């Protein structure tokens, strides 16, 4: 009897939760929060004037309900993280001052999330240039929108999609003056200009993640979160273009042709900063060259000694 009751309540609870979720995101107009926060404008009853008023919504507080429906946190409702007092409007001004739950409040120290290594990521973030500049205010959500976040790198086998998705996180601030200024206090440098040393820039941007050059890579994390200052970024072509000689050859040829097509003239050929590493690319030849060098040197020394003492 007892177990039957539990079963009935469980089924009821399950359907109720399904219904509330459906209301939450798929039917935003019915949702208590999203009926305002998914639109450009909102209407409310001004009790002082005693009439309805329509106002513009702060663009930073408008949520993309479609993205939310696909996000990893879709099963949560707004008041699971935000104060339930937000249910009334006008919102109580003091609510802004209350600290929000952080990601680690749920994800930290939890076995079920162990594979994502949230705690280690937090340690890395604390070493990063972002944390040094903005302190604890630079939380996970600055890059990973808690409302719409989807795991791409783990699920996608399309490299271009992963690169695009990851770089958008960086660009959301680094390509946006207002957001950038919030953290750094000065205007954002033009990315195309600061990367003008990089050959074939557009191709690199499409195929390489920002973090590839701008983090200290550690093997134990899928994506390193210790974002380094620009002085520590990878800037030597050979750091990437060494493993495969073919890649290096293409790099050499590219740089050479590029420089000549840009400026023209024979002098460019001479002042070409690209170069090609020769025999030392092959460990065998390197060893051989050392052996020959020392053999010749010892031959000469022995001969010289004979000339000095034997004559």
């Amino acid at each position, binding site marked *: 009897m007892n177990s039957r009751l539990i079963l009935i309540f469980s089924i009821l609870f399950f359907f109720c939760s399904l219904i509330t979720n459906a209301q939450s995101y798929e039917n935003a107009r019915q949702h208590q929060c999203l009926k305002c926060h998914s639109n450009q404008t909102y209407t409310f009853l001004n009790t002082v004037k005693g009439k309805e008023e329509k106002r513009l919504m702060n663009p930073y507080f408008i949520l993309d309900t479609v993205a939310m429906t696909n996000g990893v946190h879709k099963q949560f409702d707004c008041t699971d993280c935000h104060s339930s007092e937000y249910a009334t409007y006008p919102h109580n001004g003091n609510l802004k001052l209350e600290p929000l739950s952080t990601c680690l409040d749920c994800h930290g120290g939890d076995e079920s999330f162990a594979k994502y290594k949230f705690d280690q990521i937090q340690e890395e973030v604390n070493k990063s240039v972002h944390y040094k500049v903005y302190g604890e205010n630079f939380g996970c959500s600055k890059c990973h929108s808690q409302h719409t976040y989807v795991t791409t790198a783990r699920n996608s086998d399309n490299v271009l999609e992963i690169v695009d998705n990851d770089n958008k996180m960086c660009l959301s601030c680094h390509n946006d003056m207002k957001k950038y200024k919030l953290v750094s206090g000065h205007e954002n440098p033009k990315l195309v200009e600061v990367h003008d040393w990089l050959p074939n820039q557009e191709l690199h941007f499409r195929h390489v993640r920002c973090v590839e050059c701008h983090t200290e890579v550690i093997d134990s994390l899928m994506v390193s979160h210790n974002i380094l200052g620009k002085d520590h970024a990878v800037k030597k072509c*050979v750091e990437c273009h060494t493993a495969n*000689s*073919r890649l*290096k*050859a293409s790099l*050499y*040829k590219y740089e*050479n*042709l590029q420089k000549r097509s840009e400026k023209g003239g024979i002098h460019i*050929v*001479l*002042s*070409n*900063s*690209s*170069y*090609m*590493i*020769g*025999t*030392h*690319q*092959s460990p065998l*030849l390197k060893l051989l*060259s050392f052996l*020959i*060098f020392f053999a*010749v*040197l010892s031959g*000469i020394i022995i*001969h*010289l000694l*004979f*000339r000095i003492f*034997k*004559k």
Partner: protein
Amino acid sequence: MGTTEKIYFYPVWLRIWHGINALGIIILIITGISMQSSLDSPLIGFSLAVNLHNITGIVILLSYLFFFIGNIVTKNGKYYLIKAKGFFQNPIKQSVYYAWGMFHGSKPPFPLSQKRKFNPLQKYFYVLVMYIAVPIVIITGIALLFPELIIEEAYGFSGLFLTAILHSAVGFFISIFLIIHIYMSSIGKSPFDNFKSIISGWHHL
């Protein structure tokens, strides 16, 4: 010393070429090694090494053409001709002299004269360097300056990679030659006599 016979072996054009070539080759070796080992020393910065190597390479190309033409239009070229007779025995005889004979009071097997400027072993090395090795580094060097000239792929390797390997391997051979060349020059009337000769033009027999 004053009583010894001397021959005017090295005409002015040859001495000028030798001077430019010596300086150029030394610069190429130093900058070559510095690039090879990716050294970014405060003395020669990496980009300076690259530029210096490229410019000196062109200077050496011009000086090589000067040497090549000079050896055609003057009689100097005949000293580099190798005859079939004694092709193997002569250099071996000379090697034995260097390794054994000269320490046991033997006379040089091929004494130098107006007709013979180089001993056989010396001639072989000079021909090897000036008519095989230097042309190879010049041609591969030009190819590396204009990489579109190089075939894309050969036997599954990048053509550019093979060219670079050949360039630096032959460059290494020339460096080894230079060490031996300088050492052998000290075997003369006196240790510094041959060095004086290449400046004055007169060789003491």
